[in-house]
């Protein structure tokens, strides 16, 4: 039997090299600042889709509240950027409007850029570690877990609206300047910012892929099938689930930070339930079992929304919903599943027409 090329690990890495090569080369072709910024934001969406693919595709943990980590990361980053522009002793203007006369303690750590960025990554990750730990040791799973993440996300959105003096409520935070790292300013409309986000996207995707290929990833894929069985093999399933969920939160947190840097604006819309569910849809359309295809799913849907969706106005959401139904019904593996099936058919027709190649592959097996 000829191997399905889709499962060939070397080819998978070559495909990564090719895809990221193309994506990374964009600023060499275009210097349209608006386009670069927009594509970089797609990169952020790509990271989110990768994070969902890691916990839902690999671990079977359907997480509809991925915007929790995204929003927390984005807010912490925006707070850091806001404080960078604040002169010593002054506080952000919206606080004055809301009756505060001193910087609240929760803002204090963000005075320092390094601490602020570390918090932007750590706060969501630690939250996921604790939340996941509590849920998975209690063996909460499947739809129950999905609903709990959704409810928690919704609660976060409400809290951030309600704490107006600290978060500027529905208006959100819009830092007046872009992020400065030491002496360098990251201009969100530059190829530098594009490559910065691109680098993070590659790091997250390749890191997630390596984790998927490790023994940790093998156990995670096994517990997606049957957690009970894996427990009897001696693995502490709750810890594995918590960690894969936390890692996906870490990626979403990095996406949140990048988003704040690129858009210089955060609001409770980052905790929006609809947005959070659309992350799941990107991954489902692209193929949740494949990190890179989930990323393509995000690019496709968001790209289509920007360039085609405008013409359809509100009908766009119906088109999106309908295509989701079509994929679930006819392409459960998403685009990735389609590619896998096509390559599988090629492999089968090869082995039928070319008997010699079968013998050859058998001889190669035997020689191993």
């Amino acid at each position: 039997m000829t191997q399905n090329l889709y499962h060939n690990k070397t080819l998978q890495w070559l495909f990564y090299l090719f895809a990221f090569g193309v994506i990374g080369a964009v600023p060499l072709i275009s210097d349209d600042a608006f386009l670069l910024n927009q594509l970089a934001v797609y990169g952020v969406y790509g990271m989110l889709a990768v994070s969902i693919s890691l916990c839902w595709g690999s671990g079977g943990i359907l997480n509809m509240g991925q915007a929790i980590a995204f929003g927390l990361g984005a807010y912490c980053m925006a707070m850091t950027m806001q404080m960078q522009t604040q002169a010593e002793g002054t506080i952000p203007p919206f606080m004055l409007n809301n009756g505060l006369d001193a910087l609240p303690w929760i803002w204090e750590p963000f005075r320092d850029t390094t601490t602020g960025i570390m918090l932007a990554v750590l706060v969501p990750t630690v939250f996921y570690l604790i939340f996941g730990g509590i849920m998975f040791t209690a063996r909460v799973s499947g739809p129950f877990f999905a609903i709990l993440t959704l409810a928690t996300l919704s609660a976060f959105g409400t809290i951030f609206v309600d704490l107006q003096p600290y978060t500027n409520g529905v208006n959100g935070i819009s830092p007046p300047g872009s992020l400065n790292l030491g002496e360098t300013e990251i201009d969100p409309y530059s190829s530098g910012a594009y490559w910065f986000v691109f680098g993070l996207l590659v790091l997250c995707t390749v890191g997630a892929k390596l984790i998927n290929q490790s023994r940790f990833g093998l156990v995670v894929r096994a517990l997606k099938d049957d957690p009970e069985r894996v427990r009897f093999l001696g693995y502490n399933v709750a810890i594995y689930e918590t960690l894969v969920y936390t890692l996906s939160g870490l990626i979403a947190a990095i996406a949140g930070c990048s988003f704040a840097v690129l858009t210089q604006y955060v609001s409770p819309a980052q905790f929006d339930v609809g947005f959070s569910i659309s992350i799941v849809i990107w991954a489902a359309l692209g193929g949740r079992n494949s990190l890179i295809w989930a990323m393509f799913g995000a690019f496709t849907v968001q790209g289509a929304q920007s360039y085609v969706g405008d013409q359809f106005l509100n009908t766009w959401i119906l088109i999106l919903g309908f295509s989701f139904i079509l994929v679930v019904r006819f392409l459960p593996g998403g685009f990735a599943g389609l590619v896998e099936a096509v390559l599988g058919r090629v492999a089968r027709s090869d082995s039928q027409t070319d008997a010699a190649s079968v013998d050859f592959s058998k001889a190669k097996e035997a020689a191993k």
Partner: protein
Amino acid sequence: MIGGFFRVENIEKSFGGNKVINGFCLDVAENTLQCLVGPNGAGKTTMIDLISGRQKPDAGKVYLNGDDITGQGEHEISRKGIGRKFQIPAVLKGLTVRENLEVAYSREVNPLRNMFVMKATGCAEKLDEISRQVRLTERLNVEAGLLSHGETQWLEIGMVLMQDPAILLLDEPVAGMTENEIGLTVDILNKLKRTHTIILVEHDMGFVRKIADVVTVLHMGALLAQGSIEDIEKDDRVRAVYLGTEDAH
């Protein structure tokens, strides 16, 4: 220190006031195959659940090599060296046969360390040996969900063996197999019992006769009789409760 290799003492378990296991005791010697038999509802599978940690006993103790392992979590008991095969074969259907065996090779269970391991040391050799033992060398790249029923049973026995457990708990390993497959399984088990300790739950006395070193009869959650298959078949009480009900079928 409690003597003996594996020992179960006065285990009791009730479900909703209904006593299912009633002071059951068991001693198993190393490298023997001990069959747990009994009519439907005697509490055989419950006993396996209690030993492997899926259920916690209300009273009584379980000792392995003198260590008290009563009431620990499934993964802890598994790490102590008790491997279990389920009554309804539980393999990981979405993974290939090879991946199933690789997951079962659970020498290192620490998730953080496992993130940095691509190939476990010694796994390939063990996988080679075990897949030959359970006759699945030709099927390693097949998705486990596509195996025949008999192959699925063998794969699960293989998974338990990959764990290299001190004791194998096999719950009805030949259920649903063809005559031919049962014959092959008898060969596999008779080879295994020279080097492994096996506790096997079974219904079918014909199969028990071909493999058992010691037979333990469980009735109403308590030990009814224990001994060689010849002794058990001569025992009048066993005939009354077990073989008697068999005749009634």
